[in-house]
């Protein structure tokens, strides 16, 4: 019964949300039953001309009733708030060891780029049981990344980054839906999240082609856009070197400190004068408007790779893409891909396979 009325639970967050939901449903159901029950009972008992007792109520009772149910509802509502809010706060910060996935939304597709190299369209492969941190942005309008089975939703905003995270608890294929209205094919901006056993995931990952690796693209940009002129080791300009910087806490001019993460790198590229590293002159020009969001993500991935030590290289020449994942290619990219023929039917992102 319940399975019909509840979406599948496939993340750590899902049972927590459902618990609050069910409790609220129970409380609400009780209140509705109380109100409707009283209305019906009074309607029958005090119908016009019935023989029920209709003596006046003492006014004291009236006031006590008012204060009583005001206090009671206030108490119940504040309690629910506290419960829901604490669940939310607990779920807010992503674990430090999370896999980082950059999501770029555009009309009407999802591009996902994992920091470990996998790059997909309308799909995201993740290992079960591992926290995944999503960094979302959009290239045009506002979209929203929604995975009902994970009870997860976050808007992807143009020109800004938003973050959220999840930890899948079940293998299988789950809907990815866009829930912020984004134009003509909003309803076809679908994708799927494929949750795999860690060993399957490793095999799938190693099958990814190397060419479209984020960090490598970033390395190219680093040279092409002139970043290397100042930041490369041995440059004549007095600029901070970037190797080993990722994740460290660095001192800033003015005595503050900052942790080098995606947001900091982004800010340093777009608003270099805001948080200048201690001991350096604010000479770097802003790249606001010169680099796209995707390029900033690539540069970020490069800087991250510099800090993470030498990158594990993969064997070239392995069979491309996810040919070992069950299902035909058409099934795996159900949503509209620009340029691909449009099928007016519903996207069969569908019947999530249950293990």
């Amino acid at each position: 019964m319940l399975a019909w009325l509840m979406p599948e639970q496939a993340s750590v967050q899902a049972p927590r949300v459902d618990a609050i939901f069910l409790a609220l449903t129970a409380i609400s159901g009780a209140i509705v039953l109380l109100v409707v029950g009283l209305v019906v009972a009074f309607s029958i008992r005090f119908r016009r001309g019935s023989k029920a007792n209709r003596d006046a109520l003492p006014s004291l009772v009236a006031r006590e009733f008012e204060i009583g149910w005001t206090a009671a509802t206030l108490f119940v509502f504040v309690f629910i708030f506290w419960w829901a809010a604490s669940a939310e706060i607990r779920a807010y910060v992503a674990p430090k060891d999370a896999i980082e996935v950059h999501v770029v939304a555009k009309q009407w597709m999802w591009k996902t780029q994992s920091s470990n190299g996998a790059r997909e369209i309308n799909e995201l492969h993740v290992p079960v049981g591992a926290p995944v941190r999503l960094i979302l942005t959009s290239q045009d309008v506002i979209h929203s990344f929604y995975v009902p089975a994970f009870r997860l939703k976050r808007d992807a905003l143009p020109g800004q980054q938003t973050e959220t995270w999840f930890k899948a608890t079940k293998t299988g294929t789950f809907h990815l839906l866009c829930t912020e209205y984004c134009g003509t094919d909003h309803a076809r901006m679908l994708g799927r999240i494929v949750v795999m056993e860690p060993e399957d995931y490793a095999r799938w990952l190693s099958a990814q082609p190397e060419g479209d690796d984020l960090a490598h693209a970033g390395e190219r940009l680093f040279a092409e856009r002139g970043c290397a002129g100042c930041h490369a080791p041995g440059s004549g300009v007095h600029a901070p070197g970037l190797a080993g910087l990722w994740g460290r806490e660095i001192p800033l001019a003015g005595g503050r400190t900052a942790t080098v993460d995606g947001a900091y790198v982004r800010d340093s590229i777009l608003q270099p004068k805001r948080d200048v590293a201690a001991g350096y002159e604010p000479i770097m020009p802003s790249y606001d408007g010169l680099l796209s969001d995707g390029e900033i993500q690539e540069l970020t991935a490069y800087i991250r790779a510099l800090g993470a030590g030498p990158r594990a290289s993969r064997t070239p020449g392995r069979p491309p893409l996810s040919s070992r994942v069950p299902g035909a290619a058409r099934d795996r990219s159900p949503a509209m891909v620009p340029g691909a023929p449009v099928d007016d039917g519903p996207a069969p992102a569908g019947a999530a396979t249950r293990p």
Partner: protein
Amino acid sequence: MSAGLAESPTALADRGELALGLPESYLAAGHTLGSWLTSTDHKRIAILYAISITVFFFLGGAAATMVRLELFTPKADVVGADTYNKLFTLHGVIMVWFFLIPSIPTTLGNFLLPLMIGARDMAFPKLNLASWYLNILGGLLTASAMLAGGIDTGWTFYVPYATVFSNSAVSLGVLGVFVSGFSTIATGVNVIATTHTLRAPGMTWFRLPLFVWALYTTSLIFVLATPVLAVTLLLVVAERAFDLPIFDPARGGDPILFQHLFWFYSHPAVYIMILPAMGVISEVITCFARRRVFGYTFMVYALLAIAVIGFFTWGHHMFTSGMSPFAALVFSFLSFIVAVPSAIKVFNWTATLYRGQIGFESPMLYALGFVGLFTVGGLTGLFLASVPIDVHVQDTYFVVAHFHYIMVGASVSAYFAGLHFWWPKVTGRMYPETWAKFAAILMFFGFNLTFFPQFIAGYLGMPRRYHVYPPEFQIWNVLSSSGAAVLAVAYLMPLGYLTWSVLFGERARNDPWNASGLEWRTTSPPPRENFLGKPEVLAEPYNYHPEGAPPVKDQPRIPAQGSLT
């Protein structure tokens, strides 16, 4: 039934009732179109509004019908994507700004406010007429946007889609809404000034009927929230028409700021729709329970609290939007708080029934339906106020179901309750009661069948504004679309029998329900000057039984159950 036509519109059903020289009714004060279109009589302006919002209601309803038809199957088989997007936008824009927001305040409110406080007219009669023209002008602009190709942004006009990406007639439609905003501000100014300055002698603040309090608090929102919407929409137009970078993130703008400004208006706008409905329900329930309202002062403070706290909660529309988590918690807390006064009102209505002499005429059926639907709608609001659940159901059909329970289930039920309750006063005619009861019951069941399945579809994860959807949601959409068909019939029925009653209905007495309000102490329909002489108020409202004495059995004085034959 045949006697109806022969008599003059000023005639009374019972000539013994108020035989004080029988002044001409406001309906008889002129029969030309010009006498209506230039009238500054609040009662005639109310009729003008009633006609225009009825037209808009059926226009918005037609769009909704197409939407539900399309959603019957998971495929796009009735309309394509762009048409569908334009249809739900049309439905939203028309229903919100040209039906729901003006519905009760400008029709029943306009008609009844001076009558209820014993005044001759509104404080600024010309402004009142001007506000109707502004409303019509706005409506025509928005409707012409439909002719110019339609708008495909959704009623929320979210940027940067509405400013940079949409190729449809957004500017025209937005300007229409902007103009109608000034119409509601004018109405708000008028209602507040009238309530403060034109109360009859003896009509103290705590003798005002709750409907007047409801109109007053609604007008506070009209006046204080609408200007923010006006600016926001004007900014959208400026960005589209003059290419000014305002919200465009590619040029440094902040789309979340648009959402703040938009919801600062649009959340209180929900209270614009529900507060007058609460006022109507308080009048109807007390009358048909033959009891004084339970906890009058609490009811007044609850109205004020909803109107004020309603301004603090807009952020719960934005929990997933990238708003800061700290702000999300603040807004979540405030949203829970605003539910308390609403709960107080529900309990007080229920308690008013206790030890009453309850009759089940059609206005009361609508009112009882309101209590149930409002309770469900209000409680599901708590789900949306708690952040983790909202993250899951935001922008799904759960939200759609929730706000339709409030805005359609509750508000429209109350509108029909009020329409039937005061119909004899407005038109001087009785409507066929059996038909009205049937429509009320049909509306209740049709509504629940339409919108309850949407709660389930929403929790299962069906996003809103989808014209094609994964097939596992089909069962819920089929239920919902079937309910919509029932609901459509239920909405068409009053159009039929009420129109019929204007022409052929029995004459109404001055006070057919034995109600207590000042508006019943004049002829049906009232004369241009509203009262025969100067009214003076000597007692509390809802004086249905002496304080401390039980209510007595009291049949309404309506003709034998009318029918269409």
